[in-house]
Protein backbone atom coordinates (compact mmCIF):
# COMPACT_ATOMS: atom_id res chain seq x y z
CA UNK A 1 0.00 0.00 0.00
CA UNK A 2 1.51 3.38 -0.91
CA UNK A 3 2.25 5.57 2.08
CA UNK A 4 0.13 8.69 2.46
CA UNK A 5 1.77 11.99 3.30
CA UNK A 6 0.68 13.30 6.67
CA UNK A 7 0.57 16.94 7.68
CA UNK A 8 -0.30 18.47 11.00
CA UNK A 9 -2.39 21.62 10.93
CA UNK A 10 -3.57 23.65 13.92
CA UNK A 11 -6.83 25.44 14.53
CA UNK A 12 -6.23 28.49 16.65
CA UNK A 13 -8.30 31.37 17.96
CA UNK A 14 -9.99 32.75 21.05
CA UNK A 15 -12.50 30.57 22.88
CA UNK A 16 -15.95 29.96 21.40
CA UNK A 17 -15.08 31.27 17.93
CA UNK A 18 -16.06 27.92 16.43
CA UNK A 19 -12.79 26.02 16.00
CA UNK A 20 -14.25 22.69 17.07
CA UNK A 21 -17.29 23.24 14.86
CA UNK A 22 -15.07 23.98 11.86
CA UNK A 23 -13.00 20.84 12.52
CA UNK A 24 -16.14 18.76 12.94
CA UNK A 25 -17.67 20.17 9.78
CA UNK A 26 -14.51 19.46 7.83
CA UNK A 27 -13.83 15.98 9.24
CA UNK A 28 -17.33 14.64 9.92
CA UNK A 29 -19.43 16.91 7.71
CA UNK A 30 -21.82 17.83 10.49
CA UNK A 31 -22.59 20.66 12.89
CA UNK A 32 -23.67 20.64 16.51
CA UNK A 33 -25.22 23.78 18.01
CA UNK A 34 -24.12 23.01 21.57
CA UNK A 35 -21.09 24.87 22.85
CA UNK A 36 -18.61 22.65 24.67
CA UNK A 37 -15.26 24.20 25.58
CA UNK A 38 -12.30 22.27 24.26
CA UNK A 39 -9.70 21.44 26.84
CA UNK A 40 -6.15 20.69 25.75
CA UNK A 41 -6.26 19.31 22.25
CA UNK A 42 -8.42 17.06 20.14
CA UNK A 43 -6.84 15.54 17.08
CA UNK A 44 -8.90 14.38 14.16
CA UNK A 45 -7.92 13.41 10.68
CA UNK A 46 -9.18 13.48 7.15
CA UNK A 47 -7.59 12.28 3.96
CA UNK A 48 -7.95 14.70 1.08
CA UNK A 49 -7.24 14.05 -2.55
CA UNK A 50 -4.63 16.22 -4.18
CA UNK A 51 -3.23 16.14 -7.66
CA UNK A 52 0.09 15.12 -6.14
CA UNK A 53 -1.53 12.24 -4.23
CA UNK A 54 -3.59 11.77 -1.11
CA UNK A 55 -2.79 13.85 1.92
CA UNK A 56 -3.73 12.90 5.48
CA UNK A 57 -4.51 16.09 7.33
CA UNK A 58 -4.18 15.84 11.10
CA UNK A 59 -6.32 18.59 12.49
CA UNK A 60 -5.23 19.78 15.94
CA UNK A 61 -8.18 21.53 17.50
CA UNK A 62 -6.60 23.48 20.33
CA UNK A 63 -8.26 24.98 23.36
CA UNK A 64 -8.92 28.70 23.00
CA UNK A 65 -8.53 29.17 26.73
CA UNK A 66 -4.98 29.58 27.95
CA UNK A 67 -5.00 26.99 30.69
CA UNK A 68 -1.33 26.10 30.21
CA UNK A 69 1.96 27.96 30.28
CA UNK A 70 3.78 29.20 27.18
CA UNK A 71 6.04 26.15 27.00
CA UNK A 72 3.13 23.73 26.77
CA UNK A 73 1.30 26.01 24.35
CA UNK A 74 4.43 25.98 22.19
CA UNK A 75 4.58 22.18 22.29
CA UNK A 76 1.11 21.98 20.79
CA UNK A 77 2.32 23.97 17.79
CA UNK A 78 5.60 22.14 17.13
CA UNK A 79 5.62 20.08 13.98
CA UNK A 80 2.75 22.00 12.35
CA UNK A 81 2.80 22.49 8.61
CA UNK A 82 0.05 25.12 8.59
CA UNK A 83 -2.51 26.86 10.74
CA UNK A 84 -6.02 28.20 10.51
CA UNK A 85 -6.58 31.18 12.77
CA UNK A 86 -10.23 31.82 13.50
CA UNK A 87 -12.21 34.78 14.78
CA UNK A 88 -15.91 35.10 15.51
CA UNK A 89 -17.47 37.74 13.27
CA UNK A 90 -20.02 38.56 15.97
CA UNK A 91 -17.41 39.23 18.69
CA UNK A 92 -15.17 42.15 17.94
CA UNK A 93 -12.56 41.27 20.56
CA UNK A 94 -11.77 37.96 18.87
CA UNK A 95 -10.14 39.81 15.94
CA UNK A 96 -7.13 40.46 18.18
CA UNK A 97 -6.60 36.69 18.20
CA UNK A 98 -5.30 36.87 14.62
CA UNK A 99 -2.26 38.82 15.73
CA UNK A 100 -1.88 36.99 19.04
CA UNK A 101 -1.80 33.50 17.56
CA UNK A 102 0.29 34.49 14.54
CA UNK A 103 2.83 35.91 17.00
CA UNK A 104 2.72 32.72 19.02
CA UNK A 105 3.45 30.63 15.93
CA UNK A 106 6.34 32.90 15.07
CA UNK A 107 7.67 32.70 18.63
CA UNK A 108 8.02 28.92 18.27
CA UNK A 109 10.18 29.51 15.21
CA UNK A 110 7.60 28.23 12.74
CA UNK A 111 7.35 29.78 9.30
CA UNK A 112 4.20 28.09 8.05
CA UNK A 113 1.28 29.11 5.84
CA UNK A 114 -1.64 30.72 7.63
CA UNK A 115 -5.26 31.07 6.62
CA UNK A 116 -7.43 33.50 8.56
CA UNK A 117 -11.09 32.67 9.00
CA UNK A 118 -13.95 34.96 10.02
CA UNK A 119 -16.43 32.37 11.27
CA UNK A 120 -20.20 32.57 11.90
CA UNK A 121 -20.88 34.48 8.69
CA UNK A 122 -24.44 33.18 8.85
CA UNK A 123 -25.17 35.52 11.79
CA UNK A 124 -25.50 38.55 9.52
CA UNK A 125 -27.49 40.71 11.96
CA UNK A 126 -24.95 40.27 14.74
CA UNK A 127 -21.86 40.91 12.69
CA UNK A 128 -19.35 43.14 14.46
CA UNK A 129 -16.22 42.88 12.28
CA UNK A 130 -16.10 44.34 8.78
CA UNK A 131 -14.53 42.85 5.67
CA UNK A 132 -12.06 45.73 5.59
CA UNK A 133 -10.87 45.00 9.12
CA UNK A 134 -10.35 41.33 8.30
CA UNK A 135 -8.51 42.11 5.10
CA UNK A 136 -6.30 44.60 6.85
CA UNK A 137 -5.06 42.00 9.34
CA UNK A 138 -4.73 39.32 6.66
CA UNK A 139 -2.69 41.66 4.49
CA UNK A 140 -0.33 42.32 7.38
CA UNK A 141 0.54 38.64 7.33
CA UNK A 142 0.19 38.32 3.55
CA UNK A 143 -2.24 35.49 4.12
CA UNK A 144 -5.72 34.84 2.78
CA UNK A 145 -8.77 35.56 4.87
CA UNK A 146 -12.07 33.79 4.28
CA UNK A 147 -15.51 34.21 5.73
CA UNK A 148 -17.05 30.92 6.73
CA UNK A 149 -19.88 29.28 8.59
CA UNK A 150 -19.36 25.95 10.27
CA UNK A 151 -23.13 25.90 10.71
CA UNK A 152 -24.03 26.10 7.03
CA UNK A 153 -20.73 24.67 5.85
CA UNK A 154 -20.08 27.68 3.64
CA UNK A 155 -16.38 28.04 2.86
CA UNK A 156 -15.32 25.56 5.55
CA UNK A 157 -13.97 23.03 3.10
CA UNK A 158 -12.47 25.84 1.02
CA UNK A 159 -10.48 27.17 3.97
CA UNK A 160 -8.90 23.80 4.79
CA UNK A 161 -8.20 23.04 1.15
CA UNK A 162 -6.69 26.47 0.63
CA UNK A 163 -4.33 25.81 3.51
CA UNK A 164 -3.44 22.38 2.09
CA UNK A 165 -2.72 24.02 -1.24
CA UNK A 166 -0.42 26.56 0.39
CA UNK A 167 1.37 23.80 2.32
CA UNK A 168 1.88 21.85 -0.86
CA UNK A 169 3.31 24.89 -2.57
CA UNK A 170 5.89 25.12 0.19
CA UNK A 171 6.78 21.45 -0.35
Amino acid sequence: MPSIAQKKICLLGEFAVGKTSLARRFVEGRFDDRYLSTIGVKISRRVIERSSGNLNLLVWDLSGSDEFNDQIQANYLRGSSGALIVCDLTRRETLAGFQRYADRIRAVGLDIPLVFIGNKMDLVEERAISDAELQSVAETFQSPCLLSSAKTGENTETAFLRLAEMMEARG
Partner: protein
Amino acid sequence: MFENTALALDVLQALLERQKVTYALLEDDLSLREFGPNFQTFLNNPKVHFGQSAAEVFDALIGSEQVLQDIWNGIISEYRLEYVNFSPPNFPARYISLYIWPRQRASDRHFLLLVEDVTPAALLEQRAIQARNELYLLRAQLDQDNARLQRQAFYDALTELPNRRYLDDALRRYIEFSGRYLTPLSLMMMDIDDFKVLNDAFGHPAGDEGLRLLARVISESMRATDFAARYGGEEFCVFLPMLDAARARVFADRIQQTLEQRLAPFPWRFTISVGIAALTPGAASAVELIKLADDALYRAKREGKNRICVSETEK
Protein backbone atom coordinates in the same frame (compact mmCIF):
# COMPACT_ATOMS: atom_id res chain seq x y z
CA MET B 1 17.62 10.66 43.38
CA PHE B 2 14.91 9.53 45.77
CA GLU B 3 16.10 8.76 49.25
CA ASN B 4 13.85 5.76 49.49
CA THR B 5 14.05 4.03 46.13
CA ALA B 6 12.08 1.02 47.31
CA LEU B 7 9.16 3.20 48.34
CA ALA B 8 9.27 5.07 45.05
CA LEU B 9 9.13 1.77 43.18
CA ASP B 10 6.13 0.70 45.26
CA VAL B 11 4.37 3.94 44.39
CA LEU B 12 5.14 3.45 40.71
CA GLN B 13 3.93 -0.15 40.92
CA ALA B 14 0.63 1.03 42.43
CA LEU B 15 0.19 3.68 39.76
CA LEU B 16 0.87 1.18 37.02
CA GLU B 17 -1.54 -1.34 38.50
CA ARG B 18 -4.25 1.28 38.84
CA GLN B 19 -3.77 2.28 35.21
CA LYS B 20 -2.95 5.85 36.20
CA VAL B 21 0.27 5.86 34.23
CA THR B 22 2.20 3.77 31.79
CA TYR B 23 5.51 4.19 30.01
CA ALA B 24 7.55 3.16 27.02
CA LEU B 25 11.09 3.59 25.74
CA LEU B 26 11.36 5.15 22.29
CA GLU B 27 14.10 5.06 19.71
CA ASP B 28 15.09 8.18 17.77
CA ASP B 29 12.65 7.26 15.03
CA LEU B 30 9.80 7.04 17.57
CA SER B 31 9.62 3.23 17.42
CA LEU B 32 8.69 1.44 20.62
CA ARG B 33 11.80 -0.19 22.04
CA GLU B 34 10.03 -1.54 25.09
CA PHE B 35 7.06 -0.61 27.24
CA GLY B 36 5.58 -1.10 30.67
CA PRO B 37 3.66 -4.24 31.64
CA ASN B 38 0.37 -2.32 31.61
CA PHE B 39 0.98 -0.46 28.34
CA GLN B 40 -1.40 -2.51 26.21
CA THR B 41 -4.18 -2.61 28.79
CA PHE B 42 -3.79 1.10 29.47
CA LEU B 43 -4.33 1.76 25.78
CA ASN B 44 -7.01 -0.89 25.36
CA ASN B 45 -4.90 -2.10 22.47
CA PRO B 46 -3.44 -5.61 22.77
CA LYS B 47 -1.94 -5.36 19.28
CA VAL B 48 0.65 -2.76 20.22
CA HIS B 49 4.06 -4.32 19.76
CA PHE B 50 7.77 -3.56 20.01
CA GLY B 51 9.19 -1.88 16.93
CA GLN B 52 5.88 -0.24 16.11
CA SER B 53 5.97 3.52 15.78
CA ALA B 54 4.58 5.36 18.79
CA ALA B 55 3.01 7.74 16.25
CA GLU B 56 0.72 4.88 15.18
CA VAL B 57 -0.47 4.60 18.76
CA PHE B 58 -0.66 8.29 19.59
CA ASP B 59 -1.79 10.67 16.82
CA ALA B 60 -0.27 13.44 18.88
CA LEU B 61 3.21 12.10 18.20
CA ILE B 62 2.92 12.10 14.42
CA GLY B 63 5.66 14.29 13.03
CA SER B 64 7.47 14.52 16.36
CA GLU B 65 10.83 13.25 15.08
CA GLN B 66 12.13 16.81 14.89
CA VAL B 67 10.98 17.39 18.43
CA LEU B 68 13.08 14.42 19.62
CA GLN B 69 16.08 15.88 17.82
CA ASP B 70 15.44 19.21 19.49
CA ILE B 71 15.42 17.47 22.86
CA TRP B 72 18.78 15.79 22.18
CA ASN B 73 20.24 19.03 20.94
CA GLY B 74 19.07 20.82 24.08
CA ILE B 75 16.78 23.19 22.17
CA ILE B 76 13.93 22.05 24.38
CA SER B 77 14.39 20.28 27.70
CA GLU B 78 11.34 18.05 27.55
CA TYR B 79 8.22 17.57 25.52
CA ARG B 80 4.89 17.71 27.29
CA LEU B 81 1.47 17.50 25.72
CA GLU B 82 -1.22 18.04 28.31
CA TYR B 83 -4.85 16.99 28.09
CA VAL B 84 -4.79 15.16 24.79
CA ASN B 85 -8.29 13.92 24.01
CA PHE B 86 -7.83 10.15 23.73
CA SER B 87 -11.47 9.13 23.52
CA PRO B 88 -12.35 6.55 20.91
CA PRO B 89 -15.50 7.48 18.97
CA ASN B 90 -18.69 6.85 20.97
CA PHE B 91 -16.81 6.15 24.19
CA PRO B 92 -16.77 8.29 27.34
CA ALA B 93 -14.24 11.12 27.37
CA ARG B 94 -10.69 10.08 28.16
CA TYR B 95 -7.74 12.44 28.38
CA ILE B 96 -4.07 11.63 28.57
CA SER B 97 -0.92 13.65 28.98
CA LEU B 98 2.29 12.67 27.21
CA TYR B 99 5.76 13.47 28.52
CA ILE B 100 9.00 12.69 26.72
CA TRP B 101 12.44 12.97 28.30
CA PRO B 102 15.85 11.98 26.94
CA ARG B 103 17.45 9.02 28.70
CA GLN B 104 21.09 8.10 28.30
CA ARG B 105 22.75 5.00 29.75
CA ALA B 106 26.43 4.78 28.76
CA SER B 107 26.44 5.01 24.96
CA ASP B 108 22.83 3.92 24.74
CA ARG B 109 20.44 6.79 24.21
CA HIS B 110 16.69 6.68 23.93
CA PHE B 111 13.61 8.50 25.11
CA LEU B 112 11.32 7.81 27.99
CA LEU B 113 7.66 8.30 27.16
CA LEU B 114 5.38 8.64 30.15
CA VAL B 115 1.65 8.46 29.54
CA GLU B 116 -0.67 9.62 32.28
CA ASP B 117 -4.43 9.30 32.47
CA VAL B 118 -5.60 12.79 33.41
CA THR B 119 -9.29 12.35 32.71
CA PRO B 120 -10.66 13.45 36.12
CA ALA B 121 -8.51 16.60 36.20
CA ALA B 122 -9.28 17.40 32.57
CA LEU B 123 -13.03 17.04 33.05
CA LEU B 124 -12.90 19.19 36.17
CA GLU B 125 -10.93 21.85 34.34
CA GLN B 126 -13.19 21.55 31.32
CA ARG B 127 -16.23 22.26 33.49
CA ALA B 128 -14.55 25.26 35.10
CA ILE B 129 -13.48 26.69 31.75
CA GLN B 130 -16.89 26.00 30.26
CA ALA B 131 -18.60 27.87 33.10
CA ARG B 132 -16.18 30.80 32.83
CA ASN B 133 -16.57 31.03 29.05
CA GLU B 134 -20.35 30.78 29.18
CA LEU B 135 -20.45 33.53 31.79
CA TYR B 136 -18.27 35.72 29.61
CA LEU B 137 -20.45 35.11 26.56
CA LEU B 138 -23.58 35.79 28.57
CA ARG B 139 -22.18 39.11 29.80
CA ALA B 140 -21.07 40.04 26.30
CA GLN B 141 -24.57 39.28 25.02
CA LEU B 142 -26.06 41.35 27.83
CA ASP B 143 -23.77 44.28 26.98
CA GLN B 144 -24.80 44.06 23.34
CA ASP B 145 -28.48 43.94 24.27
CA ASN B 146 -28.05 46.94 26.56
CA ALA B 147 -26.27 48.89 23.84
CA ARG B 148 -29.05 48.04 21.40
CA LEU B 149 -31.75 49.06 23.88
CA GLN B 150 -29.90 52.27 24.62
CA ARG B 151 -29.71 53.00 20.92
CA GLN B 152 -33.40 52.26 20.49
CA ALA B 153 -34.20 54.60 23.39
CA PHE B 154 -32.14 57.53 22.14
CA TYR B 155 -31.99 57.18 18.37
CA ASP B 156 -34.57 57.38 15.63
CA ALA B 157 -34.70 54.05 13.82
CA LEU B 158 -35.55 55.54 10.41
CA THR B 159 -32.94 58.28 10.11
CA GLU B 160 -30.46 56.95 12.71
CA LEU B 161 -30.21 60.44 14.14
CA PRO B 162 -30.67 61.08 17.87
CA ASN B 163 -34.34 61.37 18.83
CA ARG B 164 -36.27 63.97 20.82
CA ARG B 165 -35.38 62.37 24.16
CA TYR B 166 -31.67 62.55 23.40
CA LEU B 167 -32.07 66.09 22.06
CA ASP B 168 -33.68 67.41 25.26
CA ASP B 169 -30.74 66.14 27.32
CA ALA B 170 -28.10 67.33 24.83
CA LEU B 171 -29.57 70.84 24.46
CA ARG B 172 -29.40 71.36 28.21
CA ARG B 173 -25.70 70.48 28.18
CA TYR B 174 -24.94 72.66 25.14
CA ILE B 175 -26.66 75.62 26.79
CA GLU B 176 -24.80 75.07 30.05
CA PHE B 177 -21.51 75.04 28.18
CA SER B 178 -22.28 78.21 26.23
CA GLY B 179 -23.51 79.97 29.38
CA ARG B 180 -20.42 79.07 31.35
CA TYR B 181 -17.86 80.00 28.67
CA LEU B 182 -19.90 82.83 27.11
CA THR B 183 -19.68 81.32 23.63
CA PRO B 184 -22.31 81.57 20.86
CA LEU B 185 -24.80 78.79 20.26
CA SER B 186 -27.34 78.69 17.47
CA LEU B 187 -30.29 76.41 17.11
CA MET B 188 -31.66 75.56 13.71
CA MET B 189 -35.07 73.95 13.22
CA MET B 190 -35.99 72.71 9.80
CA ASP B 191 -39.11 71.15 8.37
CA ILE B 192 -39.83 69.47 5.05
CA ASP B 193 -42.31 71.56 3.11
CA ASP B 194 -45.59 69.89 2.12
CA PHE B 195 -44.42 66.52 3.35
CA LYS B 196 -47.97 65.17 3.27
CA VAL B 197 -48.19 65.98 -0.44
CA LEU B 198 -44.99 64.01 -1.06
CA ASN B 199 -46.38 61.03 0.89
CA ASP B 200 -49.74 61.19 -0.85
CA ALA B 201 -48.30 61.54 -4.31
CA PHE B 202 -45.42 59.09 -4.16
CA GLY B 203 -46.26 56.88 -1.18
CA HIS B 204 -44.76 56.51 2.27
CA PRO B 205 -41.59 54.73 1.08
CA ALA B 206 -40.73 57.93 -0.85
CA GLY B 207 -41.47 59.98 2.26
CA ASP B 208 -39.21 57.73 4.35
CA GLU B 209 -36.46 57.96 1.77
CA GLY B 210 -36.82 61.74 1.80
CA LEU B 211 -36.41 61.82 5.59
CA ARG B 212 -33.33 59.58 5.39
CA LEU B 213 -31.85 61.70 2.63
CA LEU B 214 -32.29 64.93 4.56
CA ALA B 215 -30.80 63.28 7.68
CA ARG B 216 -27.76 62.22 5.65
CA VAL B 217 -27.31 65.68 4.18
CA ILE B 218 -27.47 67.24 7.66
CA SER B 219 -25.05 64.67 9.13
CA GLU B 220 -22.55 65.12 6.31
CA SER B 221 -22.69 68.92 6.59
CA MET B 222 -22.16 69.03 10.35
CA ARG B 223 -18.92 69.69 12.17
CA ALA B 224 -17.85 67.15 14.78
CA THR B 225 -19.07 69.42 17.59
CA ASP B 226 -22.54 69.99 16.12
CA PHE B 227 -25.55 67.97 17.14
CA ALA B 228 -28.55 67.02 14.99
CA ALA B 229 -31.71 65.19 15.95
CA ARG B 230 -35.05 64.25 14.47
CA TYR B 231 -37.35 66.48 16.45
CA GLY B 232 -40.50 64.69 15.37
CA GLY B 233 -42.38 63.92 12.16
CA GLU B 234 -40.61 65.72 9.33
CA GLU B 235 -38.92 68.22 11.62
CA PHE B 236 -35.19 68.26 12.42
CA CYS B 237 -33.13 70.23 14.87
CA VAL B 238 -29.40 71.13 14.79
CA PHE B 239 -27.30 72.80 17.51
CA LEU B 240 -24.36 74.78 16.24
CA PRO B 241 -21.98 75.72 19.04
CA MET B 242 -19.60 78.66 18.44
CA LEU B 243 -21.80 79.97 15.61
CA ASP B 244 -23.95 83.10 15.79
CA ALA B 245 -27.21 83.34 13.83
CA ALA B 246 -25.57 84.89 10.74
CA ARG B 247 -23.09 82.07 10.43
CA ALA B 248 -25.77 79.52 11.16
CA ARG B 249 -27.65 80.92 8.20
CA VAL B 250 -24.68 80.18 5.93
CA PHE B 251 -24.76 76.63 7.24
CA ALA B 252 -28.51 76.38 6.51
CA ASP B 253 -27.94 77.72 2.99
CA ARG B 254 -25.40 75.00 2.38
CA ILE B 255 -27.83 72.32 3.52
CA GLN B 256 -30.52 73.64 1.18
CA GLN B 257 -28.12 73.65 -1.77
CA THR B 258 -26.74 70.19 -1.04
CA LEU B 259 -30.24 68.83 -0.63
CA GLU B 260 -31.26 70.17 -4.00
CA GLN B 261 -28.27 68.46 -5.66
CA ARG B 262 -28.89 65.17 -3.85
CA LEU B 263 -32.55 65.13 -4.88
CA ALA B 264 -31.66 65.40 -8.56
CA PRO B 265 -31.75 61.64 -9.35
CA PHE B 266 -35.16 61.14 -7.69
CA PRO B 267 -38.53 61.44 -9.46
CA TRP B 268 -39.83 63.48 -6.54
CA ARG B 269 -38.69 66.76 -4.99
CA PHE B 270 -39.13 68.60 -1.73
CA THR B 271 -37.85 71.76 -0.13
CA ILE B 272 -37.21 72.71 3.46
CA SER B 273 -38.00 75.72 5.60
CA VAL B 274 -35.56 76.69 8.31
CA GLY B 275 -35.86 78.76 11.49
CA ILE B 276 -32.76 79.92 13.33
CA ALA B 277 -32.36 81.33 16.82
CA ALA B 278 -29.25 82.05 18.84
CA LEU B 279 -28.64 82.05 22.55
CA THR B 280 -28.96 85.58 23.94
CA PRO B 281 -29.41 87.05 27.40
CA GLY B 282 -33.09 87.29 26.52
CA ALA B 283 -33.32 83.66 25.42
CA ALA B 284 -31.11 81.82 27.83
CA SER B 285 -33.01 78.59 28.38
CA ALA B 286 -33.65 75.56 26.20
CA VAL B 287 -37.39 76.21 26.18
CA GLU B 288 -36.93 79.83 25.12
CA LEU B 289 -34.39 78.96 22.43
CA ILE B 290 -36.60 76.27 20.93
CA LYS B 291 -39.59 78.60 20.95
CA LEU B 292 -37.66 81.31 19.10
CA ALA B 293 -36.36 78.88 16.48
CA ASP B 294 -39.83 77.40 16.12
CA ASP B 295 -41.38 80.85 15.65
CA ALA B 296 -38.79 81.63 12.97
CA LEU B 297 -39.59 78.35 11.25
CA TYR B 298 -43.31 79.12 11.17
CA ARG B 299 -42.57 82.56 9.81
CA ALA B 300 -40.60 80.89 7.01
CA LYS B 301 -43.64 78.72 6.30
CA ARG B 302 -46.00 81.69 6.34
CA GLU B 303 -43.80 83.68 4.01
CA GLY B 304 -43.98 81.03 1.31
CA LYS B 305 -41.78 78.09 2.44
CA ASN B 306 -38.43 77.02 1.01
CA ARG B 307 -36.66 79.78 2.89
CA ILE B 308 -34.56 80.51 5.95
CA CYS B 309 -35.76 82.89 8.67
CA VAL B 310 -33.74 84.12 11.59
CA SER B 311 -35.45 84.88 14.89
CA GLU B 312 -36.60 88.51 15.26
CA THR B 313 -34.48 88.91 18.41
CA GLU B 314 -31.36 88.53 16.26
CA LYS B 315 -32.19 91.43 14.02
